[in-house]
């Protein structure tokens, strides 16, 4: 049943060509492609088949799945029924225990070399027992499942870069999917959690074109992560004018000025929040008056306070400076005293010279000659 094309499926449901084109229009928008691509998307979808998807959840908080279920265009139901065949997702599926694991093995077997693996959560390596599913360690399940997959999508910052479990001191020895899967086409869809429509958009892209989209150097699809929050922020003009909120309730904050001074990490963060927004495009963090945390960037948990401006160093530099002052004063004093001593010695070694001395020397020299 997975082998039907999407067009055939829609036709069976009595969807007209107009309906199909409308569907393609929404899908093109979802994939963040320009509207001129609608006909290309329609053409691709005529032959596209629903891929089997195996969703693995490791060291995660289910926030990414929660985010996915908030996708409304397409809805999660629409996604599962029309776009993909979600064959394994232990949070969403009805089956549990042995039946659930059977479904995973079946999907892997039947769609060998063609199925898509989606991972949320990081993988602990210190002790495989830190996180297991049906008695199988995360690392073993990942390696086994990925072996015959066509591609892997790491959803969420934990799967993409290690995320919260990987943050210092990383007690479980957590690693990202890319650390363990070096040889498969891999798409990172980071975010804590990712924007719902970014997750579905990436899935739709794979379904439509049967290939992974163009990625940046951190493995993120450029259509969604190509521009920084700062570049797409509607408050950008205030940054350029030098108008900043200095506390969360001052006049500047009320006027919607730039949140840079309050620690916004927008300049260093690449994500689609500024355009796709959250909660059915209602708003997004900066629009609600809070700076960006940088959650789609590697190690954002270790990148210092969320409320410290990006230009402020993050280390304990006051302490470093304190030690330097102590050492500088100490050694400076010693150096000063040594210099004084050198000077005193030099003064002491000076012998007085008089005109007579020159005369004597002259005579001596003459005698010598």
């Amino acid at each position: 049943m997975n082998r039907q094309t999407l067009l055939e499926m829609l036709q069976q449901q009595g969807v007209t060509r107009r309906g199909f084109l409308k569907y393609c229009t929404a899908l093109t928008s979802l994939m963040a492609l320009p509207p001129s691509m609608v006909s290309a998307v329609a053409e691709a979808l005529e032959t596209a088949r629903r891929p089997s998807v195996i969703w693995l959840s490791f060291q995660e908080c289910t926030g990414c799945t929660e985010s996915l279920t908030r996708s409304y265009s397409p809805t999660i139901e629409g996604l599962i029924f029309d776009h993909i065949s979600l064959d394994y997702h232990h949070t969403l599926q009805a089956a549990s225990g042995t039946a659930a694991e059977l479904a995973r093995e079946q999907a892997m077997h039947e769609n060998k070399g063609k199925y898509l693996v989606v991972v949320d959560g990081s993988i602990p390596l210190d002790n495989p027992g830190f996180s297991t599913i049906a008695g199988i360690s995360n690392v073993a399940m990942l390696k086994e499942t990925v072996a015959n997959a066509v591609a892997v999508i790491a959803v969420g910052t934990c799967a993409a870069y290690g995320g919260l479990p990987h943050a210092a001191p990383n007690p479980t020895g957590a690693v990202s999917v890319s650390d363990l899967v070096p040889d498969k086409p891999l798409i990172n869809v980071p975010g804590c959690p990712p924007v719902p429509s970014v997750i579905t958009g990436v899935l739709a892209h794979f379904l439509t074109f049967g290939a992974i989209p163009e990625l940046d150097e951190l493995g993120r699809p450029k259509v969604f992560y190509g521009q920084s929050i700062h570049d797409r922020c509607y408050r950008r003009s205030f940054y350029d004018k030098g108008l900043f909120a200095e506390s969360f309730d001052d006049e500047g904050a009320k006027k919607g000025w730039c949140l840079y001074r309050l620690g916004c990490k927008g300049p260093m963060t690449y994500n689609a929040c500024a355009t796709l927004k959250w909660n059915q495009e209602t708003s997004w963090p900066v629009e609600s008056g809070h700076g960006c945390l940088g959650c789609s960037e590697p190690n954002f948990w270790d990148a210092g306070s969320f409320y410290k401006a990006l230009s402020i160093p993050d280390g304990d530099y006051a302490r470093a400076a304190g030690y330097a002052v102590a050492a500088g004063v100490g050694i400076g004093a010693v150096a000063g005293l040594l210099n004084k001593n050198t000077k005193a010695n030099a003064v002491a070694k000076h012998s007085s010279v008089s005109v007579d001395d020159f005369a004597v020397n002259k005579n001596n020299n003459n005698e010598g000659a």
Partner: protein
Amino acid sequence: MQDLSDIKIIVDDPAVQSGNLQSIVTEIYHALKKLLAKKNIHRIDLRAMPWTAGEEQQLEQILGVGEVKIEMNAMGKSIFQETSYSGVWWISHYNDEGDVISRLIEISYLPDMIFAQQEDIKSALERLKNNL
């Protein structure tokens, strides 16, 4: 209250603007010029814009309401509203649940999707034949 979109957005500080309004109006202007000269069709995806609250409503007001409004029912409702600027269409697609799934501005004589489609005509022929 049915939906988030039912919450009315009131813009109390028009000074907070992203500057996108002006650039979209400019884009529409140039697209309309091209439509007249070369019959080029142009579409703008409104979803891909970093709007501030209420900016999109402002654009709707700027463009105004024109003479033609077409309602389509295919996998949910769609509204094709001609704006007060002839050749500029405001298009909203909804899904079966009534959520907006896509919003576009199309600069064309008539939105493409309105025309009867080859495939649909073929299947209509089939069905008619059965009624002969």
